[in-house]
């Protein structure tokens, strides 16, 4: 019984283990007899390949846990690749830099302002015995408003100056890493605002963003060159290659971002009030609202994070494939949702987590790696992917157990049509015993 429960609780990891096992057994060998699947290079390649989907799936997990969905991540990612590639290759005030510089400055200013307020709040809360009973700490005008605003303005100005100074030349790797996710986050903020203030359904709002971000990307890139090539060393800075390098010869750089995102947001979900609120809102939004949770803020933040991570994925895409194109992320949103779902996160919200998403992303990555090693048609890969989604979700949601018991148990009785319209003879309400006698006599 205990073994069974343990098995069922860790079934996700067993799926991963089984995929690894199949990969190792089925893998072709090199001429020297080494197992290609298990080789170091192959495994790091898998990690590299899943990183972009993985980053997007991380943000998607937050949104889905909240009970929402973000269909725009693919387009937002594509738009980010355009921004990133144009900043890297084209000096001067291009559409990309005109958008990116002010957005980054505003984002930095707001970010620092809120961070300052947050820190003052934490400090003010202190180690009070009665802290658990005291709700919100009220900060004075200086610490509550003036210092954060001041700090925010200063930081925003600094970022504006720093990025604007790079416009005349071309953007460096750090500047791109800062600016691009900010732009994507702004798109996420639009999603969030539409959902929170406009009361749009997440599906609708992000569907609209999915369509418009694609158009926006094409407009920004210009009609003629839908693909912006990035040749580091010739038309872009050599330093950008750091994003496709190996870190200490162990991990590919993209996977470092992916793993960091998983760890950071895993901790956020597990240990912070924000994470608790995400689960609470996903579980029962009305009850969460009535519990004093600022539902709108949490929702907005989640969509912004989803956009931010999509933007980061966009930068990594440019580094990986040496190009930016508006449709770089087409279909990415569905891959991400699939990874989240096979990771056991409920689409209804409130149930699941990032560990599952991590495994879900890896399962997809390993699967396509195995099939590639076997030289199997990529269309078969798609088919397998579909089967895996259905299979894992059946096991995850314990539908399988229900299905099995239904098959094993007795079949439900066939539907009858006994109580048809004619069959009903209503109780005669107003007939007294005397009238019955009358009826008897009459008949």
């Amino acid at each position, binding site marked *: 019984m205990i073994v069974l429960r343990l098995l069922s609780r860790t079934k996700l990891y067993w799926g991963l283990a089984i995929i690894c096992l199949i990969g190792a057994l089925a893998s072709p060998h090199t001429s020297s007899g080494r197992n290609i699947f298990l080789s170091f290079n192959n495994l790091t390649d898998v990690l590299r390949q899943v990183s972009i989907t993985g980053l997007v799936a991380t943000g998607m997990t937050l949104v889905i846990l909240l009970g929402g969905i973000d269909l725009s991540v693919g387009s937002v990612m594509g738009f980010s690749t355009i921004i990133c590639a144009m900043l890297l290759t084209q000096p001067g005030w291009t559409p990309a830099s005109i958008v990116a510089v002010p957005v980054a400055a505003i984002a930095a200013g707001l970010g620092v302002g809120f961070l300052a307020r*947050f*820190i003052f709040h*934490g400090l003010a*809360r202190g180690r009070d015995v009665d*802290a*658990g*009973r*005291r*709700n*919100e700490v009220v900060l004075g005008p200086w610490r509550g408003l003036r210092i954060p605003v001041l700090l925010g303005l200063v930081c925003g100005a600094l970022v504006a100056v720093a990025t604007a100074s790079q416009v005349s030349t071309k953007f460096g790797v750090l500047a791109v890493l800062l600016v691009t996710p900010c732009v994507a986050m702004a798109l996420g903020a639009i999603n969030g605002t539409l959902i929170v203030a406009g009361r749009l359904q997440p599906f609708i709002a992000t569907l609209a963003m999915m369509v418009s971000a694609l158009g926006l990307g094409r407009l920004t890139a210009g009609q003629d060159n839908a693909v912006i090539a990035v040749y580091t060393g010739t038309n872009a800075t050599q330093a950008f290659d750091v994003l496709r390098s190996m870190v200490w010869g162990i991990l590919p750089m993209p996977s470092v971002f992916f793993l960091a995102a998983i760890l950071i947001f895993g901790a956020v979900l597990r*240990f*912070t*009030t*924000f*994470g*608790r*609120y995400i689960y*609470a809102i996903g*579980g*029962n939004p*009305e*009850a*969460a*609202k*009535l*519990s*004093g*949770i*600022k539902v709108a803020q949490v929702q907005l933040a989640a969509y912004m994070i989803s956009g931010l991570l999509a933007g980061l994925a966009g930068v990594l895409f440019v580094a990986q494939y040496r190009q930016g194109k508006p449709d770089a992320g087409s279909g990415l949103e569905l891959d991400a949702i699939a990874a989240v779902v096979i990771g056991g996160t409920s689409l209804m919200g*409130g*149930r699941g987590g990032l560990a599952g998403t991590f495994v879900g992303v890896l399962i997809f990555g390993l699967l396509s790696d195995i099939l590639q090693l076997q030289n199997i048609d990529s269309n078969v890969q798609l088919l397998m992917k579909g089967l895996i989604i259905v299979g894992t979700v059946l096991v995850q949601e314990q539908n399988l157990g229900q299905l099995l018991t239904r098959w094993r148990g*007795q079949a*439900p*009785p066939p*539907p*009858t*049509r*006994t*109580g*048809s*319209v004619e*069959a*009903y*003879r*209503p*109780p*005669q*309400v107003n*007939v*007294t*015993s005397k009238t*019955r006698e009358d009826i008897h006599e009459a008949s």
Partner: protein
Amino acid sequence: MTTHGVSIQDEMASSVQSGRRSSGDDGQTSHNHAVVLEAKGISKTFAGVTALRDVDFDLRSGEVHALMGENGAGKSTLMKILAGVHVDYEGEIRINGAPVSFSGVRDAERAGVAIIHQELNLVPELTAAENIFLGREPLILGTIVDHRRIVKAASALLKRLGIEIDAQRRIAELRIGEQQLVEIAKALSLDARILIMDEPTSALSSAECDTLFKVVRQLAQAGVAIIYTSHRLDEVLALANRVTVLRDGQRVLTAPIEGLSQGAIISAMVGREVTLSRRDSVASSSASVLSVRNLTLDKVSSRGWRRVLQGVSFDVRPGEILGIGGLLGSGRTEILESIFGVARGWRDGDIAVDGEPVSINSAADACRLRVALVTEDRKALGLHVASTIRDNVALPSVAAASRFGVRGFVREAELATEMVEKLAVRCYGIDQIVATLSGGNQQKVAIGKWLATGPRVLLLDEPTRGIDVGAKQEIYQLIFGLAAEGLAIVVVTSEMPELLLLSDRVLVMCEGRQTGVLSGAEATQEAIMRLAAPGMSERAAP
């Protein structure tokens, strides 16, 4: 204790003679005492837990047989066995003398037993008529649904039952009471001779209840045998012919209703003497914690703005319990929602907490001012039923227990433990899932969740809805205790005895207007009803 021992034999004989009753016209006399259903030695265990132990039960045609018991006493298990929901049990069930063993609900329906669940099983987007014949639609040429026939048959059926509902209205447009009546019509269209009703009035207004009772009485008169459960003793006393009380899975009483007092039934249910005592009014001279002036609320409806609240003003002092009475829809809940900042619509008026004028525009604002609202519908609005007690109790306090946004897990657990102990929540521990608690204990968790925030004003909306008598008593004691600690409490309740018992003062609402505030001895049932009834209020002095 059992008073039917002798007569049962005769009735058995007569029911065998009369054979299976299949049509409606042989039940004219209201009590011909034929036993239509007899259950003997019913036992049922769930995973080792005994839900029913050797229970005997009999039902005569034309009677309303009330089945009473606290939550967990086994009454819903018994009803489900009789209705074919549970098919594995020990014991024997006879219908009209013939032993039966249902394979499922459909099977029971074919034998003339229908159950109306507490949660209505109607499709909101279909009309009443379509719901009544759902799954059994008469067809033209075996393919096309004969819609005209459905409407005609359903209208006739509703009319014969004395229910004034247009069969072509969608269920979503009907009020809950009307939906309940449609459900009854549906059960009867299955040719049910035995009708099992599980808490049919729990969501009904008193006018709707009256209609329901009328229909139930008519059915009984026509020979339908009815098993009826309710937490409301007064309606059971008014409606039932006999009552069976279950406690801890065993039958403790079956008796005719005549000669039974409310107290006797409660004692049988609880197994001890229960006294409903009003507390001594606490004379509080201190300034009011919550004061509301000229509260108005307008809601948008399909026909433009509608005034839901008009000029409501009151004060609550520390240690005082203000009861809000009135009919369903008189604006009681809206008062609480307006104070808590979550009412939908346009709100006007002044609210002051501790003498300070405040503007509360969200639950978060209310929390900051230490105003707490325990909602009416605890499953949908009050609790995350799929989460643990710990998570539920800590939820409004998560921010307060945290530092730099990092949750204080230790503090959260402390709060949960403290509340579980203080409110005497019966559970295995703070990590038990709330959905597995009984209704009364869920309600305690819902209250505890707010007590953990250290409120000064506690707004309670229907604090004992769907809770059994014993647990009600505990909730009352709890509310008195909290008032004694100095909380200002506002209680909204539909149950008159509860209102009278709890309140130091009673504010009566009628159609969105405040028709009076009664205190102490003035607050009697008659006085409250006079102020609450529409059309009467003009004469009543506010």
